[in-house]
């Protein structure tokens, strides 16, 4: 299986009477759906959230990748930490992460949520969101442009592929036998009624 949007890499095509037969595995199909509809939570913390909002708006239009903000953590797959995580907000961030259904992913956007950024020596700023929740993709920048967030989404899609392939044997679609294809063809012919 490969990364990107090319679904045909995971398919085997067989010509039968009246059309084509596509075979795939459930794992590939679930992964394809999962990486093509990464729904982030509508959640912004500081000035990086402005760039995130611009990403969702018409000029950059992340909806074309299936990235579409959801208003509740119960429906969200992705938590974009866009801004400074202060210590007063950190328990709320942790709780939002725990309220998201698994599989869930976290993108740390900008210098503040990566490591504290310009507020590293502050008494009130957490030194990185990875002190409280695991992070999948870090984006540098202060703030990162929407193009950087675009790259993060692409990286996350590649990571979803690699993540689900890593723990199990990669299943390839098994080609049907000649007898099975013959039966399928007969069934197709009888279904057409000719």
């Amino acid at each position, binding site marked *: 299986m490969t990364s990107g949007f090319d679904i045909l890499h995971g398919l085997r095509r067989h010509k039968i009477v009246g059309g084509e037969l596509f075979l795939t595995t459930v794992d590939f199909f679930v992964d394809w759906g999962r990486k093509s509809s990464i729904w982030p939570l509508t959640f912004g913390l500081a000035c990086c959230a402005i760039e995130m909002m611009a990403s969702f708006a018409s000029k950059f239009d992340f909806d074309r990748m299936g990235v579409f903000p959801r208003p509740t953590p119960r429906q969200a797959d992705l938590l974009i930490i866009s801004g400074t995580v202060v*210590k*007063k907000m*950190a328990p709320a961030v942790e709780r939002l992460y725990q309220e998201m259904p698994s599989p869930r992913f976290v993108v740390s956007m900008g210098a503040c949520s990566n490591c*504290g950024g310009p507020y*590293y*020596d*502050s*008494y*009130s*700023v*957490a*030194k*990185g969101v990875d*002190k*409280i929740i695991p992070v999948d993709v870090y984006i540098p920048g202060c703030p990162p442009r929407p193009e950087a967030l675009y790259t993060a989404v692409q990286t996350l899609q590649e990571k979803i592929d690699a993540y689900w392939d890593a723990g199990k044997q990669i299943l390839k679609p098994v080609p049907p036998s000649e007898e099975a294809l013959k039966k399928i063809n007969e069934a197709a012919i009888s279904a057409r009624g000719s």
Partner: protein
Amino acid sequence: MFPVNLVIEISQRIHRVTLPGEKPNYVRDPESFLTVLPSNLHDVCLALREFPDYLFDLPLQMTAVDFINEKVFELVYYLYSSKLRQGIIVKTQVPRTAPEIESVSDIWPGMDWQEREVYDLFGVKFRNHPNLKRIMMWEGFSGHPLRKDYVHQTDKYDSGLEIGTPGLDERGVPIP
């Protein structure tokens, strides 16, 4: 109400932006200063709001300055009159060892949260405040972080290498 001689004293001490009979001068930044004793602050503030020459009905903000060498906190009140279009800065000083002053939130309800912020970050106590508790820092936080002698206690969100952490010098290098 405020005593009359207090108004006379105020009028002698402050530089008025707009004199009586003049056309209103549209001043953006208030440049008049008034320094008062902390025991007089509440009466002076009441006079500044009520007296027809002042009518400071809009509390812009208040803040505090930590003069650690002089061992005082200076409280700074920014006031503005929306009717006369003039501004003033009222300053007073309280000792650092026992910082306590009368609240003016009964005169201007807008000063309520401002005083809570000063209480939170500087530890100045305001008498007769309706709800004096922390507003910026979370519950259970100890200390007042904008004091110059504040020492930060490292918690689980810190990496332990910040400037000001006990055991590090001002460049963040561990003290041997």
